[in-house]
């Protein structure tokens, strides 16, 4: 069924795919970095116990988790102009991805903190450490190991999520496939090539995530 597969045209369009790939990388890395910051702040607010910080953080996290990313992207893409804000699509896209992943990351970090044994916290109490000190010396160092595998998992999700920016005409990997399809109508060549590139990224990140998970289990098995 791939008898007519036209490799020549893929090479012809290779520069376009590579540009798309480059933007997919840039968008994913920038969004992930920003999402980490947002996630840490949101998590800190959520567990702070201060009502004016806690409830907005919960609302933000739950709203993001209960609505599709595509709807969030459209919300900002169609919504920001009505507020008189016009920015390039790529910025709108990164903003949406940042908010989306930020909410998931906040929950990942929170789960990591909750996973620290209550006895550890009590021991910190008993030796007179205050909240910040308990966080810094006892809870966070132990929570960090637990959060790394799911954070890498979120990074994998985020790379795939960048594909949705093609729908607001950001020139990333998926968009390059769409462009080729509309110019030559060769969807097989276009989308299988796109899929191939995503798989390459996946096969770089997935073993990393698995490895970190294994290391964690190994450490706990002591």
């Amino acid at each position, binding site marked *: 069924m791939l008898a007519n597969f036209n490799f020549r045209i893929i090479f012809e369009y290779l520069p376009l795919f590579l540009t798309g790939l480059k933007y997919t990388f840039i968008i994913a890395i920038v969004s992930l970095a920003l999402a980490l910051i947002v996630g840490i702040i949101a998590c800190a607010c959520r567990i702070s116990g201060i009502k004016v910080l806690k409830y907005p953080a919960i609302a933000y996290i739950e709203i993001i988790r*209960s609505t599709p990313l595509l709807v969030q992207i459209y919300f900002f893409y*169609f919504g920001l102009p009505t507020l008189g804000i016009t920015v390039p699509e790529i910025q709108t896209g990164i903003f949406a991805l940042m908010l989306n992943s930020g909410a998931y990351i906040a929950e990942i970090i929170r789960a990591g903190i909750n996973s620290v044994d209550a006895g550890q916290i009590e021991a910190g109490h008993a030796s007179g450490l205050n909240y910040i000190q308990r966080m810094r010396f006892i809870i966070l160092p132990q929570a960090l190991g637990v959060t790394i595998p799911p954070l890498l998992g979120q990074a*994998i999700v985020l790379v795939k999520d960048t594909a*949705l920016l093609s729908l607001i005409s950001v020139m990333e990997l998926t968009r390059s496939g769409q462009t080729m399809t509309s110019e030559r109508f060769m*969807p*097989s060549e276009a989308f299988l090539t796109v899929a191939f590139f*995503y798989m390459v990224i996946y096969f770089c990140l997935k073993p990393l995530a698995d490895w970190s998970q294994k290391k964690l289990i190994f450490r706990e098995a002591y």
Partner: protein
Amino acid sequence: MMSFYFGRLVEIFPFFLTGLWMTVKIAFLSLIICTILGFILGMMRASHNIFLKRIIGFYVAFARGTPFVVQIFIVFFIFPEWGLQLDAFPAAIVAMAIMGSAFVCEIVASGISSISKGQWEAAASSGLSKLQQLRLVIVPQSLKVIVPPLVGQYVLLIKDTSVVSVIGVTELTRVGWVTVIRIPEGLMVFALVGILYFMISYPLILLSNYLEKKMTV
């Protein structure tokens, strides 16, 4: 201006409800298919047949490693070239089934592998066949580990149905997209779309949280 558009929005609200109904239909159908297919694949993946394991492993890697929107394009645009012409709605279901069953498969497989070897040995010692061991001893125990993340996965799958709007299925997101062209109030239109999704997803998220708590105790 805004209140004018708000009035228009109220007028065409039934249109949103038809979109919501379509979303529910797609979600419901594909969740059932994903669950059945995912359990079968997951049990096969947990078997010791290397060949089966490899094939399913590759399938899962494809489904998890590529964006859903690309998968939809493949089903909708490429399957016809291979002789499988599908309308938008069945194409959406097929794409959801391919993607979702892979995720369910992973959850089921890891749930099964969480059961200790002793349980398999005990079941084998009492003379049960491989399939019986799975069905009667292993799967019932692993349900405890499987169900909470499964419900969480359902939420993700329901939200993923929004992506099938790209091939022209008039579900909730597509309704928003069509509406925003006529009523240029992006915030209002997609806030409404978001609220309708929230109404479906949030109860499931709460259920998932509840199950997670209950199962870990």
